[in-house]
């Protein structure tokens, strides 16, 4: 393959990854690194650099649509970004000292966990919980648009349902881990963020997914600066990955209303699980 052919083939692969990632809500970043390393033989450090760039692009590009709906909680997002940015900085530091074999193995485990969440689907946290002292002090409680009548156009006029945020320290801790993995592996860590927000902090599902999307770009930007200086972000590779994933994510958002999301999540889950096993295998063999 010459440069032009290689660029086009990586762009097509990234497009598919971005489209599946946005259709299933699992994010495209999680398959970019396995795609580049396993299928194209790219060194995992270059792959992580390119993936990180695509994560910032999709998170920031999708934010406009999410924010208009009025689900995301800016205070929760900003407060937890303290944890994810510290985590991302530590992850990027640690990545300089951990062997690429270990990074591949950790990556494989995260892929397996993501696959697991794509089958189970997160449980909606229980409602009507009492206020929590720390969350009240930090003014984290919020409201979101209550379920509207089917067919009614969106907007801000509808009734809003309120919720209380719980277990702030546990959520903060999970977010540090999410940031750490994001900085170490160049992914958005959406699966761990959801674990922190809906399972630990009992934030309603729609609020936690939109707020987490909002946070992913900032988390990735925190480690991107370090990776850029380390020479992990190669323009020739970032070019097809960033533009491909971005175009794929936009296409995914456009065709989402007619898509069979449940089937897609199952298929994508199997693909991710297979990639996870292969990443662990290659990592143990020391081939990545």
């Amino acid at each position, binding site marked *: 393959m010459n440069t032009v052919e290689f660029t086009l083939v990586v762009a097509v692969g990234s497009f598919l990854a971005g489209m599946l990632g946005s259709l299933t809500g699992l994010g495209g970043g999680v398959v970019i690194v396995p795609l580049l390393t396993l299928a194209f033989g790219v060194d995992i450090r270059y792959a992580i650099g390119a993936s990180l760039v695509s994560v910032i692009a999709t998170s920031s590009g999708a934010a406009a649509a999410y924010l208009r709906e009025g689900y995301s909680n800016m205070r929760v997002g900003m407060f937890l970004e303290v944890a994810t940015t510290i985590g991302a900085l530590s992850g990027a530091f640690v990545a300089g000292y951990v062997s690429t074999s270990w990074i591949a193995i950790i990556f494989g485990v995260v892929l397996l966990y993501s696959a697991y969440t794509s089958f189970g689907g997160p449980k909606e946290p229980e409602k009507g919980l009492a206020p929590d002292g720390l969350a009240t002090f930090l003014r984290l409680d919020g409201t979101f648009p209550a379920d509207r009548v089917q067919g009614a156009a969106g907007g801000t006029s509808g009734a809003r349902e309120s919720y209380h945020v719980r277990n702030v320290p546990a959520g903060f801790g999970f977010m540090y881990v999410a940031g750490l993995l994001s900085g170490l592996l160049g992914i958005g860590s959406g699966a761990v963020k959801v674990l922190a927000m809906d399972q630990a902090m009992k934030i309603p599902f729609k609020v936690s997914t939109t707020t987490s999307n909002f946070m992913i770009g900032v988390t990735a930007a925190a480690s991107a600066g370090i990776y850029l200086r380390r020479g992990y972000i190669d323009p020739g590779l970032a070019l097809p990955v960033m*533009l491909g994933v971005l175009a794929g994510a936009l296409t995914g958002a456009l065709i989402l209303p007619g898509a069979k999301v449940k089937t897609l999540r199952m298929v994508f889950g199997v693909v991710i699980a297979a990639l996870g096993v292969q990443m662990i295998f290659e990592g143990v063999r020391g081939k990545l």
Partner: protein
Amino acid sequence: MSPAIKPTDQQFEIFLGKLLRTGVVIAALIVFAGGVWFLSETHGARREYKTFRGVPAGLSSLDGIFHGAAGGQALAVIQLGILVLIATPVARVLFSMLGFGLERDWMYVGVTAIVLVLLLYSLFNHSTR
């Protein structure tokens, strides 16, 4: 009573969303332009990614990227687009801080300032490699 999200909050969120999208569009256009340019002038063997050598300083430091892009290097133009992309969430955090300031929510001005300092530290502290 729990403080609900005020209407001003949501208008501000819509503004932030547009800011982010604009940043991504500008970054993507710069990367695309640099990419077309890069692909139109490449000859011979393609860049090798199997072994990690690290991107040269001219494409991995802020100074190098600005000088290279100004000097008409296609790969430096792509990196410039990526810098715009990295700067986009940073700008979002900066504007969030101003938004909390307008609401006189000093606790969150402080929280946002911490995030901003961490981001700027990552971008500009040259000892972190």
